[in-house]
């Protein structure tokens, strides 16, 4: 079936089986491989993308569910050659090791900061609790998110 949606701020139309997972649509059909499959059951967050402002596990979203929706992937976070503040802070704080969880981590944080520019620690915890990392122990990830938030994410 034909599905129309907005992908990284550009209109997008695909002809695809309605049961296709959003993750497979992105990775296999649109060749956007930033979203990763770590578990396939919505437990690890490596496939996180932003759908209409909310972080979702793209392994649990079917293609039909994105009709008319706005999807942001890690590839769309960099605007006009400018890195997103979260991307800069993840690099600066050494919050990236193997990097497999990184796109999902950044997008969960991004969705949080889009609607809560100055989150409390507890709000960060809630936003990031579904993203697993095995390398960093999260300390530097938390520091990166706090730093990005502290500098007024969303403001110019």
């Amino acid at each position, binding site marked *: 079936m034909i599905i129309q949606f907005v992908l990284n701020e550009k209109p997008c139309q695909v002809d695809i089986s309605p049961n296709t997972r959003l993750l497979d649509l992105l990775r296999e059909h649109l060749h956007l491989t930033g979203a990763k*499959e*770590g578990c396939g059951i919505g437990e690890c967050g490596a496939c996180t993308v932003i759908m209409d402002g909310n972080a979702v596990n793209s392994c649990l979203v079917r293609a039909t569910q994105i009709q008319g929706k706005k999807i942001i992937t890690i590839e769309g976070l960099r605007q006009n050659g400018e*890195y997103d503040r979260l991307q800069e802070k993840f690099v600066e704080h*050494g919050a990236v090791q193997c*990097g497999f969880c*990184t796109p999902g981590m950044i997008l969960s944080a991004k969705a949080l900061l889009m609607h809560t520019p100055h989150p409390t620690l507890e709000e960060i915890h809630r936003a990031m609790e579904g993203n*697993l990392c095995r390398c*960093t122990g999260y300390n*530097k990830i938390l520091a990166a998110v706090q730093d990005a938030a502290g500098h007024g994410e969303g403001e110019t």
Partner: protein
Amino acid sequence: MKQSSCIGGEYPVHDAWQKVTGQQVYTGDMQRPHMLYAKILFSDVAHADIATIDTSQAEQLEGVAGVFTHHNTPDTLFNNYISYVGQSAPEDERLFADRVRFVGDRVAVVVAKTPEIARQALRLIDVTYTPLPCLPTMEQAMADKAVSIHPEGNLLSQAELAVGDCDSAIKERANILETTSYIPRIHHGAMEPHVCLAEYHPSEGLCIWTPCQGAFGVRNMVARYLKMPYCDVRVIKTVTGGSFGGKQQSMLEPIAAFLAKAVKGSVMLQYDREASMLSTAVGTAFQFHVRSALSAEGRLDALDIEALADAGAYATNSVALPFSAGKKAMRLYRIPNLRYRSKSIYTNAPAGGGLRGWGGPQVITAMEIHMDQVAKRNNMCPVRLRMEHLVTPGEVEHYSKISLGNARIRECLTEGVELFKWYRRWERPADTGRFRRGVGLACGGHMNGYFNGVHDVSNMHLKVNEDGTLILNTAIHDQGCGTLISLALIVAEVLEVPVPSVRVLEADTHTSPYDMGTYSSRVTYVCGRCAYEAAHRVRDLLLEQAAVLLQKPKAYVYIQEGAVFVKGSSDIRMSYGEIAALAQTKLGQETAVLHGYSNSSNPGSYGCHFAEAEVDVYTGLVRITDYLAVHDVGRVLNRTMVEGQIQGAVQMGIGYTLTEEVALDHNAVPNARNFDKYTVINLPDMPQVRTKLLEYGGDDGPFGAKSIGEAALVPVMGAVVNAVNHALGTELSVLPLTPKKIVQALWKGKLP
């Protein structure tokens, strides 16, 4: 001379920008022309003969390129742990089983045009089993003489390492203390599940792209298995989404290689989480029985460790690993009579394999739980008891008879006690309410390479480009630990050039000089030293070539800030690029060296960890509320990554202690197959890990640096268990300390 040093600075991993933008290409992101997809059918019973297997329907499905089972694959037995030439280990595994030995054993594979077709074809394969009695535990496997998982019986191997005479020492003492502990079977949990891409061309041979830890080992293993010339098998290490030892063995490579050769094309073999968790290898479960004899003066005369290691269904590394654990047990405390005995037992469980620390985390956890119990039952201070026995700098370890190097575990303990305000927290009265806090500490250590065991060799080619930038060609494997940036820092420091001007290449068996692989905490210490020496040789070569080009004696030229100058002639300056370009045109030379380094020492990397646990006695839930890790790292190369390694190890260790286990039911069916039931610590449950890094240097590593990634896991479990026991007054020692076990222990103790 030099303005600033890059050693000890803060650097992100070399590919951090590609990773934060989603541009980095992992193996599963790769595409090849006409690439096919392989999906495997895994056994859902633990022990059975395959009576019949019908693949005819699957074969007829459109888009299926091949279906393979034990009927049309070699019956050659192999061991996926074997890597270097001449290495021996029991070969007891087939590519596809005719008898399955655990839930997750490989039964059949479909190669198809799309992953969907491959999955669909798997559902059309009809298998019938003749069940065999199932042995899920080591106790059952040892007791049941009638059922053998492999023809040689269920006892895979035994090891004994001893100094002094434990039996006599224990007989002479009245004060004998015994503890038992269980360290569970865990999943490595690298966020990237196992994956391998293999491609075969009749004229080119095989090319294998894999996020492995030892490309030459994979090549040796695959070429030997497929009986192909080494020059026809090329292994290229790809970006790795974490390993922790889980990708150390050739888990998928022989399968993908066989399939690519069979269908004469490209085959992507990608495991999902369940397959990664059950069908590759798990961290080996150990049962320990520890006895010690204490003198009236409070000194341990003897420590006797008996270990049972659960090999699981196939041998893989389970002969070597329990022995290696014993060697690690010899390196922490100086006790005159110290013995370690182990048995490796086959069971119908997922195979044990290499995991961060290679037996060290298991045996040291048992020792550190024991030390706390000795202290408690004899009303001694746990710091004092350890301090009486910890090894000292320069000490020769009595079993292996090699130096432990500048071992600074005592300083770790002393500094940590101070920083953590240990005594104030340890001596405070026990809590009595719902939430009870306690503190625990544990010591631990790990190796720096293979010396005194396996050959420990690295070779690197370092060349200066015509613009002065450098390429270090190595066969190393960055697992996401910042290995490449570490080597770049070392070369940049020696040659006084900016770090970004050094590019470090990873393993490609067709083009890289030989290196053993990323094992045994050898990368910083051994490979780093190789890079350091190679850089010094290039420095010398630059001076030599510049002297010839400038027609000056070599003694008259010197290097400052990445260029060559002539003493007394401040107007003459030759950049590295000019030297390299002129060396080619005027001297007919390349400004490059091929350097080999063979390691001849193995100091210890030590650490002491301090945890504060808060236990909810109503629910049995534990929260780690404070954490300090003090480490003897020799010298910090990249502070960011050293801290990251420690913090990541603490995350893994807290899970290891409290939540993580691949447990089996009485039919050897695993309880957890994915992250829904296999709980790893997430961000809100993770404490802030304070780190203190001690830099005494003094050993052979580059600028004095030693290993950290494996060493950092070793003390975690002991510190957390000891903190929980301190909070509750319990003697819990069967990991993981689940809420159920904690509540049961409290009720047994008749606490409210």
